[in-house]
């Protein structure tokens, strides 16, 4: 185990270096100075409250959607539908935020919005869960397809019933009282990060300590075994997927209440995809997930700064993130080389 961890850390570091070298070559090819670009990138990640705040602002949805993915992965269910669950959670939070403002005190509405967002996400995830469990429909297909249904449905909602009477497709703004509190102004870092971290710890403990967590993991690790033991595999898979959908929904609510103040069509810009990637490279580990999520969030935030000051398109950073993920997932790549070297050493000894 220990060896494994060391290897993974080494692997990650090598991947980062490699990615930056490749990035530098690309920048030179299109005529930019890589040193300057990377300086701006780093600045954009951490320097000053605006940049640090932007990193933390991005961190919240990445880790929550990543957590959503991990939670159902433990039961052997690949929830590619976090994006859709997030959209529905977001529009639910926006709608309730507008409808309930003034009726209840602000904090109460905030709580209602977040919980309702979570429920909306969970309800949406129930569809692929039932399809998988009872009809054996591949969840990767169904969840991806349902994403389109969900996001297009939210587009309809914010264009017609919840239209905010402005030129663009968005709802009305939610009252300030209901919004989450900000820190590191003028960035949009918000108290949602606290909720995210609490949820992370809760779910880590849930899988480590509780009976329900044990049963869900057992279903994911070996469904055949679980059946022989007398575990109702269907039930526990559905529970895990509901948790996953709930987390996706909560991520959406927090984005609305913390960052955007209203539902804007297409606001998420595929943020759940990055969460999912963070989850995949962390291999379902609750310890690695926040680290990778933070790295990805920082890169996304830094890319904005880099674009602003050097004119390099921020999509370059997206390419680098993707390359990074590619390298990290090819964990055989670097191990193979060290293995060969070890062999050669042994041969030399003989």
């Amino acid at each position, binding site marked *: 185990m220990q060896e494994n961890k060391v290897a993974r850390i080494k692997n990650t570091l090598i991947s980062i270096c490699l990615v930056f070298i490749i990035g530098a070559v690309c920048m030179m090819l299109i005529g930019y100075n890589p040193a300057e670009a990377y300086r701006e990138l780093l600045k954009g990640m951490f320097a000053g409250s605006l940049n640090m705040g932007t990193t933390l602002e991005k961190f919240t949805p990445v880790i929550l959607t990543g957590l959503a993915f991990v939670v159902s992965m433990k039961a052997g269910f690949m929830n590619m539908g976090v994006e859709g669950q997030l959209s529905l959670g977001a529009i639910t939070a926006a709608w309730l935020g507008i409808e309930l403002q003034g009726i209840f005190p602000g904090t109460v509405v905030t709580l209602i919005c977040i919980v309702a967002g979570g429920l909306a996400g969970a309800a949406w995830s129930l569809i692929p869960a039932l399809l998988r469990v009872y009809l054996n429909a591949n969840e990767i297909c169904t969840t991806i397809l349902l994403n389109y249904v969900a996001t297009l449905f939210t587009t309809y909602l914010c264009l017609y019933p919840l239209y905010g009477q402005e030129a663009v497709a968005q709802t009305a703004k939610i009252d300030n009282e209901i919004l989450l509190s900000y820190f590191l102004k003028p960035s949009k870092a918000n108290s949602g990060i606290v909720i995210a971290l609490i949820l992370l710890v809760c779910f880590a403990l849930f899988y480590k300590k509780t*009976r329900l967590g044990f049963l869900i993991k057992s279903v994911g*690790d*070996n469904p055949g*075994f679980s059946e022989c033991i007398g575990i109702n595999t269907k039930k526990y898979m559905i529970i895990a997927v509901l948790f996953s959908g709930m987390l996706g929904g909560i991520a959406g609510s927090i984005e609305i209440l913390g960052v955007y103040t209203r539902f804007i069509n297409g606001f998420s810009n595929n943020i759940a995809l990055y969460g999912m990637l963070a989850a995949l490279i962390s291999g379902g580990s609750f310890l690695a997930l926040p680290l990778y999520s933070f790295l990805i969030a920082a890169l996304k935030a830094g890319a904005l700064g880099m674009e602003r000051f050097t004119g390099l398109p921020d999509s370059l950073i997206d390419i680098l993130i993707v390359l990074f993920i590619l390298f990290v997932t090819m964990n055989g790549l670097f191990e193979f080389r060290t293995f060969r070297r070890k062999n050669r050493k042994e041969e030399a000894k003989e």
Partner: protein
Amino acid sequence: MGKILELKNIKKSFGSVKAISNGQFNLLEGEVHSVIGENGAGKSTLMKILGGVYAPDEGSIIYNDREYSSLSTKEALELGIGIVHQEFMLINEMTVLENIILGKEPKKSVSRIDFHTAKEEMKTFTEEYGFDVRLNKKVIDIPVGEAQRVEIVKTLYRGAKIMILDEPTAVLTPQESEKLFSVIRKLKESGTSIIFISHKLQEVMEISDRITIMRAGEFIATVNKSETNKGELAKMMLGRDLFHDTNREKTSPGEVCLLAENIFVPGERELSKIRDLSFEIRKGEILGVAGVDGNGQKEFTEALIGLRPVEAGKILFHNQDITNLSVKERRKLKIGYIPEDRNSTGLLRDGSIIDNLIALKINFKDMVKNGIINVANAESFADDAMEKFDIRPRKKRHICRRLSGGNAQKVVIARELSQSPELLIACQPTRGVDIGSIDAIHGLLREARDEGASILMISTDLEEVLALSDRILVLYEGRIAGIVEADKTDEEELGLLMMGGVRS
């Protein structure tokens, strides 16, 4: 008879694990030489060194007075050393003939295979040795015994002068084994030397000229068959006396525990794989289920534990109808189940020993309070179980995938027996387990029976069925071919029943 092959002072380790610390072996021309030892004694490794799969760390291989430090698989083949592996290396979709000539095809031209010549050549083998193989059948359609003969012909066709048979009888019925032995005798007459790997002492005594015993990677002795006996061999193999329940105590079974009435159970592809099966098990008895693999054992046991629906018929457990109960409900009634394949369904392979041990206990109050696992209780339970069932290493957090077959199986058995089941359905409780652990597992099952459990034990190993059972049910094509008292039958009668023969 001259010495044609010798392995001297072989050492081989894999990483920090010493597989062979002192390997000695020699082979005379035209003899049948058995190599016996427990699983992990190093016999397979030694043979793989001979076949060129592994290179030894130290030691030498002497073949016809020439010394080699190691062989490649190609060299081994050229020298005439052929291995018939335990798992057949055949391509199911090709015919027997195609399989045999694959890689050494007689050619008409560069790109055309001369099947005619191939067939002619095959005739010499089949006639000379009396091999009963059908050349035009696809491998997928032939029975195991025949597939094994195909493997042997394949090896001969490649010019083998030394043939290594790696646990060849593990998959055969007694009748098929008998057929294999006559093939071995014919090969021997024609001058082929045979290395026969097994841990079934009965067979070894029947077929060998000389016997080499290995234990824990070390050479123990090479003896002539005529100068030894089963007891002595077992002792050398284990380093101690084998516990053998020869004087079977007459058990006195109590009331009926499980009663199946005319049950029909569907298979994967067909309806009613199990047809009209009725039997009963009483309290405190072991009912053995014998039969060639694939005659409905899987469907039968899965129906009893509730993994598979029953089409028709009734299952009664202590007079309660359990036919439509779920696995969970049946387990609550104290029915235990040891699945056939511990890797796919018996264990959480990526889980720790403790995870696996508490998996059944997880619904009980002493393990869980308010939904949270009571770690202290779980650990003390695991410690006790590991001690009682002698699971090694005694590390609770050890991942089960890294356990040896015997210890992994003990984890499964510990989990099931610590529920003190009233009925235990044990499928292949000792498959792929070393002799020491087999002995221990048999002891545990007997103990459970003596404490009043009813045990249904499914096994394809006749020796095991005979040694453990009080009564024996023989399955043939999903029906009962016969139910016999264990002390009034023998391998021969069982073998006949297993092949669908009528009880004489």
